[in-house]
């Protein structure tokens, strides 16, 4: 720690303090909506390479010598703005820039692309442009960022109907999904066909593939940082869509013009409404809804508060016979405060809850199962603009987790509650973004995390065969055990020229919560479980290098990244594990090491009539765990050797855009039987190794057309038509084995495929 403190002090000392320098600071906004803009570049004409980028709240701070300066404000999809200032003192300046679509009504969008991807030190980062996502054809026409990011290199899909996302070989529970900083514990709707992220409510999405800056932590493989829209500060507007499966409506507007605004967006599916039209389905429900809400208010020139919330629920019920509902609720209260033109602070108070309830009242069974996970989190981030080339971020996060794994009540059961799990996850972090030389950018930091397992509860001591040999009871809030993990993060880019760079990164991540599932596909009843005296924190060390190159004046961007990830305390299940409602869960788990490595290729065309990208990932991910496959390395479920995505969109005319995407991936690793035998009067399967076989390869083509119907000053509308799995590939969802119904002396493998030729149509509108 000591060495670390010294280096931080050195950083402070290295800043040149020149008396006649002044600071220009403020926020950059969209001229039309007043929405603050993230990642806008502000460059100084006189001093090449002097520039800053707005932070996640649109804030910038740039320090320049006394005198007159010309600055360029540029962002993709916006016209570059030129600003002249005469600095004789510190100035606070709000900058508004115009969206390009408002300015040019031309067929060819000649959006200026910055070379941020080359210069930024950050590696393993994928930014998603919400406008781009809106053009991609998707299942049932439900635009979904969680599905769209699976088209990017290094990010893999769990397949049809799988809510899971796998990043750089990581497992499905190793991704931190943040919605306005609140963790979303189960991002699946309708058993994983849709995600909880309603794209109409989103402003910005960043995906870090395990090399995230030090302010993030808690998961091994990735962070998906999703920010909700703030709402139009100038005037009221509404937009929405009516689709085959769901309808959406968003309303936004000023609370007090230029001071505060609100945004509300709701979405509900209505498949069940068609069902209810038939009397035989009376009392059946099958729907989900989402509600996103956000409000912000500028109290003073130095203080802005934001309140955001998300509520989502899925409900499925067969009359009163059987019902299951699940959902997330999150809330974030944030306070931006400007201590001075160089010190920006954000304080967040965050709550997040996920729960599920099952009701059964059928054939003599009458019971209810409840389970939930709840977080209360306080976070403090400081951003200190030491100089135009050096920004220091530091802060802390403190989370109190409460997990109620399960509670069963009812007349056909004796009421039982699995012991609640309490824990306290703390972290301090410091990181520095430093443009050392014109050719060298650094982003380095350290996160130091501590996780305390708390009582009340019984904690078990296990022997080598996972038998409980001792039980110790800890009282309420007594610390059972605390784990500490230093998590260094380091990113550097060596800028070869304006259009190419070489980057290296190293990051360590620790994860204290683990998802336990009793099925191979994601399910609402998958359970989060806390690290305890038996289940150790998972850790990963990731090393990566990458070469980034842009062509034709940044019209094309391309990259090759190679990563290697070394993982410890990886979890898998014992043979025959019983994890459903098991108080002594640790007796069913095995631990070992993991490794993942791969190469990611990415080529993207950003501008022109024709845009799109190709991404290809060649990778491997394996585990080595005593007790599984004789302690040899074996393929993890998500190991898919080849993964290709081709995404293209072509603007045919002012009104019509066609788009298509094609994906291909090697089948995931799976356990199939190698033999059979007769026992209990039936043929059962003989297994020889875990994940020793492969599912058939997955591939699919989706096509879509977007047609602008009306484009008026106060009203616009468009029609989106799509076809998912356009050539009807039967992709295997599951492969079952059974006795041949026509010949009892034979057994056979049966493949179930879910989606073929799924059409969609939706009508989108906007009033302002």
């Amino acid at each position, binding site marked *: 720690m000591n060495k670390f403190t010294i280096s931080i002090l050195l950083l402070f000392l290295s800043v040149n303090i020149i008396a006649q320098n002044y600071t220009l600071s403020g926020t950059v906004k969209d001229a039309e909506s007043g929405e603050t803009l993230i990642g806008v570049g502000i460059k100084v004409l006189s001093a090449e390479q002097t520039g800053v980028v707005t932070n996640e709240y649109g804030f910038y701070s740039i320090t320049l010598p006394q005198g007159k300066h010309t600055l360029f404000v540029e962002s993709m999809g916006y016209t570059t703005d030129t600003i002249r200032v005469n600095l004789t003192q510190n100035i606070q300046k709000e900058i508004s820039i115009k969206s390009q679509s408002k300015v040019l009504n031309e067929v060819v969008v000649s959006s200026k692309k910055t070379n941020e991807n080359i210069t930024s030190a950050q590696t393993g980062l994928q930014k998603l442009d919400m406008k781009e996502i809106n053009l991609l054809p998707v299942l049932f026409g439900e635009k979904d960022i969680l599905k769209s990011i699976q088209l990017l290199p290094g990010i893999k899909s769990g397949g049809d109907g799988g809510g899971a996302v796998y990043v750089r070989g990581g497992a499905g529970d190793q991704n931190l999904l943040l919605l306005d900083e609140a963790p979303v514990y189960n991002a699946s709707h*309708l*058993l994983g*066909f849709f995600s909880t992220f309603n794209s109409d409510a989103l402003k910005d999405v960043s995906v870090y593939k395990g090399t995230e800056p030090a302010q993030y932590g808690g998961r091994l493989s990735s962070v998906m940082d999703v920010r909700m829209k703030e709402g139009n500060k100038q005037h009221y507007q509404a937009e929405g869509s009516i689709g085959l499966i769901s309808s959406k409506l968003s309303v936004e507007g000023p609370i007090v013009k230029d001071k505060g605004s609100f945004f509300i967006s709701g979405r509900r599916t209505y*498949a069940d409404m068609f069902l209810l039209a038939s009397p*035989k*389905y009376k009392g059946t429900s*099958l729907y989900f809804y989402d509600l996103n809400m956000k409000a912000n208010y500028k109290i003073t020139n130095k203080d802005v508060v934001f309140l955001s919330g998300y509520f989502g629920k899925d409900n*499925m019920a067969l*009359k009163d*016979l*059987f019902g*299951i509902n699940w959902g997330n609720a999150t809330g974030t209260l944030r306070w931006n405060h400007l201590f001075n033109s160089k010190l920006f602070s954000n304080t967040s108070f965050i709550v997040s809850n996920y729960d599920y309830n099952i009701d059964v009242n*059928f*054939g*003599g*069974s009458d019971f209810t199962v409840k389970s939930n996970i709840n977080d209360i989190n306080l976070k403090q981030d400081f951003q200190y603009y030491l100089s135009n080339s050096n920004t220091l971020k530091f802060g802390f996060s403190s989370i109190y987790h409460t997990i109620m794994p399960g509670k069963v009540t009812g007349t056909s059961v*004796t009421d*039982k509650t699995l012991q609640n799990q309490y824990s306290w996850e703390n972290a301090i972090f410091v990181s520095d973004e430093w443009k050392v030389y014109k050719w060298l950018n650094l982003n380095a930091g350290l996160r130091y995390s501590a996780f305390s397992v708390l009582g009340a509860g019984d904690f078990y001591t296990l022997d080598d065969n996972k038998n409980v040999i001792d039980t110790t009871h800890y009282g309420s809030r007594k610390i059972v055990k605390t784990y500490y993990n230093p998590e260094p993060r380091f990113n550097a880019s060596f800028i070869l020229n304006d259009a190419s760079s070489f980057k290296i990164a190293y990051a360590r991540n620790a994860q204290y919560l683990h998802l336990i*599932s009793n*099925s*191979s596909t994601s399910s609402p009843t998958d359970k989060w479980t806390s690290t305890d005296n038996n289940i150790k924190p998972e850790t990963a060390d990731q090393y990566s290098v990458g070469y980034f190159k842009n062509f034709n004046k940044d019209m094309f961007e391309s990259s090759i990244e190679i990563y290697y990830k070394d993982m410890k305390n990886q979890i898998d*299940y014992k*043979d*025959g*594990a*019983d*994890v459903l409602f098991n108080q002594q869960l640790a007796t069913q788990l095995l631990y070992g090491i993991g490794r993942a490595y791969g190469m990611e290729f990415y080529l993207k065309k950003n501008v022109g009539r024709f845009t799109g990208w190709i991404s290809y990932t060649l990778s491997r991910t394996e585990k080595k765990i005593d007790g599984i496959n004789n302690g040899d390395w074996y393929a993890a479920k998500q190991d898919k050797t080849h993964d290709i995505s081709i995404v293209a969109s072509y603007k045919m005319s002012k009104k019509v855009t066609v788009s298509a995407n094609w994906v291909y991936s090697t089948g995931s690793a799976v*356990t*199939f*039987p*190698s*033999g*059979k*035998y*007769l026992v*209990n009067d*039936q043929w*059962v*399967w003989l*297994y*020889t190794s875990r994940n*020793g*076989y492969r599912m058939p390869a997955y591939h699919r083509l989706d096509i879509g057309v977007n047609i602008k119907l009306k484009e008026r000053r106060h009203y616009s509308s468009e029609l989106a038509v799509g076809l998912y799995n356009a050539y009807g590939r*039967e992709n295997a969802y*599951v*492969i*079952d*084995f059974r*006795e041949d*119904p026509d010949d*009892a*002396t*034979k*057994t056979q*493998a*049966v*493949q*179930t495929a*879910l*989606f073929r030729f799924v059409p969609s149509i939706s009508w989108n509108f906007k009033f302002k």
Partner: protein
Amino acid sequence: MNKILIFAIISLVTLSSCEKVIDLDLNSVSPKLVIEGTITNTGMPDTVKLSKTINFQATNEFVGVANALVIVTDNTAGIIDTLRADAKPGYYITSKIIGTQEHQYSLRVVSEGKEYTAQSTMPQQVMLDSMYQETETILGKNIIYARCRYTDPANQTNQYHVKAYKNNKPLDDIIISKDTYNNGLNKTFDLATSDGNSNKEDNIAVGDTIKINFMCIDKKVYDYFNSLAQTLDANSAVLANPLTNISGGCLGYFSAHTVETKKIVIQ
């Protein structure tokens, strides 16, 4: 139940889901020994079956293992029974042992130079309250359920296993229960239904005779059947051979259990 609902929903949501038989290139594997030994309180001779596993593509055929030494001991009564080989290869039959509740039994098998051992205790018998049929209306369909019901005794830990037969053909569903969550309460088992079985061959109809063997099993045998059920569901988190209670490195189980047989004809 969960599974039925999920399948109902998937089929509602996806008008295009489809099933087909596919060819998989599965490895062949050297045969492994399977032991299935049961000691019951029926008063009839009991059987220990020894067989070998076969390749997945092979014709379903019981490959009995002959020339083995099979000994069952009633540890409680002190009776040692060396089983006689039946005319059917791989079948070994008891002659001295009479299965008795709360007696502990040991199995010793010596085959091809290797020794396998196991223990199992026959639990106290719990009798069924009834076996009956009921009709439920789900999504507009009348579905017949064959059910049985028993009352779990509160003062002991119990495990149950029901094997059901339709017209003497064994049904595939593994029906088991333990009393962790319903100690001392009534419990109903769905034995078979006229719709919604994962294997359509197992659907029942009017006129079918449904027979069950209702068995009280010990804890280790419950763990065996619980893990066996998992291995038959391709959606399980872990697909691995079931947890056997026989040591020595073979497949199968040894169970001393009570049996009550009941049957109904679906009307």
